[in-house]
C-alpha cells in the first residue's frame, strides 16, 4: 500500500512537470487556434540561452532577465514574420508553419549555442523528504521529492493566474474570440497582431520557466525538445483549449504512466511501456470525450 501511494504521489508530481510544457501549448491554441509544435524547441532555446550565460559567469538574475527579454522578442518576431502573414489561413497551414518554425529554431539554437549537454542548478534542493522521518505518526514509508513539490507549486500558480486571466479579463475574451474566427475578430476591431504578440511573448515566458525546471531536472541538451512529447498526451486529455485541463491531464498522465509502468508492464514481460502507455491512456480518455476532459466541443451545424 505504501508503495502504491509512493508510486501514485511520484506519478502525480512528475505529471505536473508535463503540465508545465502543456500550458504553453494550450495558451497558444486557445488564443489563436494554432497547435504550436515549436514549443519544445522554444523551451530548449530558453534553457540553452539561460545556461550558456550562467556558465559564462553571468549573474542568475541578469541571465534570467536577458532570457526573458529574448523570449518575448522572439515571440513578437514570430508573430510578425510567421503568424501575421498567415492570418486567416487554415489551421493545418498554421500548424505546419510551426513545424517549420520548430526546424528553424532547432538549427538556430544549436548554431548560436552548441549541442553539448549542460548542467543547470536552480538551487532547488534535490534531496528527498522521507515521510517516515518527518512525520513518524503517519507511519508511511514514502519519499517525496522536494524538487517536484517546488515545481508543482510553480506550475499551479501559473495555471491559476492564466485561468483567471482568460475567464475574467477583456484580453482573455479577445484571445478566445481570435481563436474562433480571425476574420470576425478583425472586423470587430480586435488588434490581432497585438493579441498574438502578447500570446507568443507569454508563451516565451512559460517556455523559459518550464525550460529551467526541466533543465534542472534532466539537464539542458537537445533532448529537452522531447519534453514536448510528454506534453502532447497531456493537453489532448485535458482538452486543447483548457488551461485547468493541462494540469488535470498532467496528473492523469503522470499517475497512469507510473502505475502502468510498475504494475502493468509485468504483462509484457517487464518491458518499459511508458511511452505508448501514456498515449494509450490519452486515447482511452479521448474515446470517451473526443475533445478532452475540459476541451470545447467542436461545433458543427448544418
Amino acid at each position, binding site marked *: 500500500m505504501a508503495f502504491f501511494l509512493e508510486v501514485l504521489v511520484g506519478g502525480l508530481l512528475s505529471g505536473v512537470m508535463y503540465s508545465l510544457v502543456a500550458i504553453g501549448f494550450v495558451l497558444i491554441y486557445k488564443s489563436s487556434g494554432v497547435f504550436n509544435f515549436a514549443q519544445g524547441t522554444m523551451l530548449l532555446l530558453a534553457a540553452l540561452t539561460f545556461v550558456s550565460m550562467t556558465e559564462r559567469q553571468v549573474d542568475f538574475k541578469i541571465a534570467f532577465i536577458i532570457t526573458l527579454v529574448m523570449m518575448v522578442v522572439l515571440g513578437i518576431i514570430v508573430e510578425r514574420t510567421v503568424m501575421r502573414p498567415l*492570418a486567416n489561413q487554415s489551421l493545418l497551414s498554421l500548424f505546419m508553419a510551426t513545424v517549420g518554425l520548430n526546424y528553424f529554431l532547432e538549427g538556430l539554437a544549436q548554431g548560436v549555442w552548441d549541442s553539448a549537454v549542460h548542467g543547470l542548478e536552480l538551487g532547488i534542493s534535490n534531496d528527498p523528504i522521507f515521510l517516515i522521518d518527518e512525520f513518524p505518526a503517519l507511519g508511511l514509508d514514502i519519499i517525496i521529492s522536494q524538487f517536484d513539490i517546488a515545481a508543482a507549486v510553480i506550475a499551479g500558480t501559473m495555471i491559476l493566474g492564466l485561468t483567471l486571466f482568460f475567464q475574467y479579463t477583456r484580453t482573455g475574451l479577445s484571445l478566445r474570440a481570435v481563436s474562433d*474566427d480571425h476574420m470576425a475578430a478583425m*472586423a*470587430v476591431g*480586435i488588434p490581432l497582431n497585438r493579441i498574438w504578440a502578447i500570446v507568443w511573448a507569454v508563451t516565451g515566458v512559460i517556455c523559459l520557466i518550464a525550460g529551467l525546471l526541466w533543465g534542472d531536472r534532466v539537464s539542458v541538451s537537445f533532448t529537452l525538445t522531447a519534453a514536448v512529447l510528454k506534453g502532447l498526451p497531456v493537453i489532448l486529455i485535458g482538452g486543447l483549449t483548457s488551461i485547468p485541463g493541462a494540469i488535470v491531464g498532467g496528473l492523469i498522465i503522470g499517475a497512469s504512466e507510473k502505475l502502468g509502468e510498475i504494475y502493468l508492464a509485468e504483462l509484457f514481460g517487464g518491458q518499459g511501456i511508458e511511452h505508448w502507455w501514456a498515449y494509450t491512456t490519452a486515447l482511452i480518455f479521448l474515446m470517451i470525450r473526443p475533445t478532452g476532459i475540459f476541451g470545447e466541443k467542436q461545433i458543427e451545424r448544418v
Partner: protein
Amino acid sequence: MSNETPILSIKNIEVVYSRVISALHGVSIDVQKGEIVSLLGANGSGKTTTCKAVSRLLEAERGEISKGSIEYNGQDISQMTPFDMVKSGVVQVLEGRHIFGHLTVEENLLTGSFIRNADSVEVKQDLEHVYERFTRIKDRRKNLGGLCSGGEQQMVAMGRAMMARPNLILLDEPSMGLAPQLIEEIFEIVKALNEQDGVSFLVSEQNANIALKYAKVGYIIENGRVVLKGSAKELSESDSVKDMYMGGGGEDVSFSDVKYYHRRKPCIV
C-alpha cells in the same frame, strides 16, 4: 448633393486578389454623413470586396487595392489597419455572420465593445440597448453562438457591431436567410440607428426591394464596375433595375410561371 465632405468616399478603386484575380475595376462610391447608401449587385459582382476594401479586411484575404483611393472623413485610409478603422468608427458586419462559435451570445456582443475601452456600466447599458432591439437573442444570451440559428446569428453580428458605437456601418447582406418580418425589423433598426444616432450605412444587398426602400442613394455594381447610380427613387423606377433585381414586373412577379428563357440570358459568372 451636399457640399459637405462625404464621410466615406471611394475613388475609382481597383482590387486584385492574390495578385492575379481582378475583382473590382473602377468603383467610386460616396456616402454622406447620416445617409444610408445601398449597394446592389448580383452574386460575385464585388459588393463584399468593396466593403472589405473600406474596412481594410482585404489584406487578410490576399487582396489589395491596386489603384484608386478611399477617404474616410476626408482622410486617406490606405495606411490604416482594420483595428484603426474600427477605432475611428467604421465597423463591418461580415457577410455570413462570422460570429464567435465558442463564445456565448453575450460574450460575442461584449467583444464588440472592447475597442472603446468603455467602463462596465456603459457596456451594460449598451447590452440592454441591443437586447431591446433584438429580443430574440436575449433569451439565448448564455447559449454558444455557434449553436444559434441562422437568423439569431445575424442578429448577434448586428448587435456586436452596434456595441462599438460606430459612425459608419458596412452592412454586408443583412437580409440573407432572415424571415421577412426580421428583415423589416433589421432595416427598421438600421433606420432607427441612422435617424436617432446619426450612424451612416453602406448596405450591400441582393434584395433590391427592401434596400431601396430604406436607402437614400443606391449604386448598382456589376462585374466589378459601378454601372448605375442614383437616388433610391430613381433606381427603383428604372426599368433595367426592375428587370434584373426586382423580377421584371416589380410587385407581382410570379415564380410559378418562370419560363425557360429566363435562364437563357447570359449567365452571371
